[in-house]
């Protein structure tokens, strides 16, 4: 199978997967339960989720390891099982991929505590936590890493540093979450798109981008801003809108068709990997996949 970076720099657009949490909840994940506990107890659910996204046309499927740094797992008393939790997640997706030409992406989310001096987290401890997670993911054979939903550039850079200390060659994507303000897009920690581009490029990320926090309309704006400032490959994973309550149930309002329309604009902007975040389903991914295929 050709390398992922070769394919995207050669002009191919790849499809990512969609939301994980929603599907885990369909399989019984309870509020307050550690989502990564499924990696130990119910790997068959992870295989099923991966299979659904692969059948929808995803070229890249993420591991269920968003919260699997030892720092975050410690909230559930699972820090000692971090290696196993990360490795099992990779294995489950790998099993689902089988002989398909699809990639396994190791998801690394924020450690869950703010870095000093704003919060209590010690940067050295956080760097070590990411190193341990990445070592387990790379050791289990991921094809790429995706450091995602970052809002603090310093934490994102720590994660990249940690990842690079483990592997200098694994393709590395870093995506941040921006909010619209009257003065442009900023993360909650105050990182602008301009700062994100320069900070992430410096740090040695191969792919940069944005995920979560917005529906497709705003994501297209963010992608445009990223593209104006960077020639690096871009990864965009939009939410299916922002959650709304309909009759007491939480609903993400944007339909597969709506995301597919946005997907056309992302293609026009030269986005290289397009997937979904919160509220997106295999149906959303299938609809975007069709747009990507038509664009070829």
């Amino acid at each position, binding site marked *: 199978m050709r390398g992922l970076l070769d394919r995207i720099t050669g002009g191919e657009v790849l499809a990512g997967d969609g939301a994980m949490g929603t599907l885990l*909840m369909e399989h019984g994940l309870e*509020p307050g339960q550690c989502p990564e506990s499924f990696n130990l107890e119910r790997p068959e659910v992870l295989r099923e989720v991966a299979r659904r996204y692969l059948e929808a046309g995803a070229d890249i499927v993420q591991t269920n390891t968003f919260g699997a740094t030892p720092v975050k797992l410690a909230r559930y008393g699972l820090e000692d099982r971090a290696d196993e939790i990360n490795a099992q997640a990779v294995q489950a997706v790998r099993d689902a991929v089988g002989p398909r030409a699809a990639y396994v992406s190791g998801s690394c989310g924020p450690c869950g505590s*703010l870095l000093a001096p*704003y*919060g209590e987290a010690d940067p050295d401890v956080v760097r070590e936590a990411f190193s341990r997670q990445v070592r387990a993911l790379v050791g289990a054979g991921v094809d790429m890493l995706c450091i995602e939903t970052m809002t603090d550039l310093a934490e994102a850079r720590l994660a990249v540093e940690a990842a690079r200390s483990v592997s200098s060659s694994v393709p590395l994507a870093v995506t941040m979450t921006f909010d619209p303000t009257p003065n442009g897009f900023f993360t*909650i*920690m*105050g990182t602008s798109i301009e700062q994100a581009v320069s900070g992430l490029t410096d740090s040695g990320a191969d792919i940069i981008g944005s995920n979560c926090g917005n529906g497709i309309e705003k994501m297209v704006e963010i992608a445009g801003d990223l593209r104006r400032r960077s020639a690096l490959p871009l990864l965009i994973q939009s939410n299916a809108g922002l959650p709304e309550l309909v009759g007491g149930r939480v609903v993400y309002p944007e339909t597969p068709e709506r995301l597919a329309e946005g997907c056309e604009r992302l293609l026009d902007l030269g986005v290289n990997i397009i997937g979904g975040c919160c509220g997106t389903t295999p149906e959303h991914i299938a609809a975007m996949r069709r747009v990507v295929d038509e664009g070829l």
Partner: protein
Amino acid sequence: MKLLEELAQSLERGDSQAAADSTRGAIELGLPAQRILDDGLIAGMAVVGRRFKAHEIFLPDVLLAAKAMYAGLALLKPLMIEQAVATQGKVVIGTVQGDLHDIGKNLVGIMLEGAGFEVLDLGTDVAPETFVDTAVREGARIIGLSALLTTTMPVMRKVVEAVEKRGLRPEIRVIVGGAPLSAAYAAEIGASAYCFDGISAVETVREMLGVER
């Protein structure tokens, strides 16, 4: 007064050392605790809150300002007790059961304390009964609930029900906030108010407790 202006400005800069120094200076000058609180700490946090709401500054700035505020408040507390400075009222806050997110809840706590309220912060993953028990024990008339997850948001209803079941309505009111929430949701679960952010939480609590500004 210049010293109190400096105190307020040290909060805006997030300078804990300067905040402590100015507070100590003001106490040594013999200024009343109420005045140091109002014209120094509360005045400084009011500016910080306004600038945050206007997106001129961001979360890290507010967190550093809060550290500076607490540095001053720690020195002022003994004097406030000695001079029997009344707080604006007590508010119990926390993130609901099953939810470990605390940034928004902490911001609300900072803004409330910065506005002169006494805040009893129960932390994250708080059981419905704990909110109610604490409010009753401490004589707080407002419970503020936070949730970031769409999956934990429904737990808010259980707190409202616990207040009702114990016949504590309307003496104890439940206000709610968090990224996935809305005024419509607050109304649906029977909460007394939805607060979009820390500043609107302060306004809501002031109104409910009849505090004048």
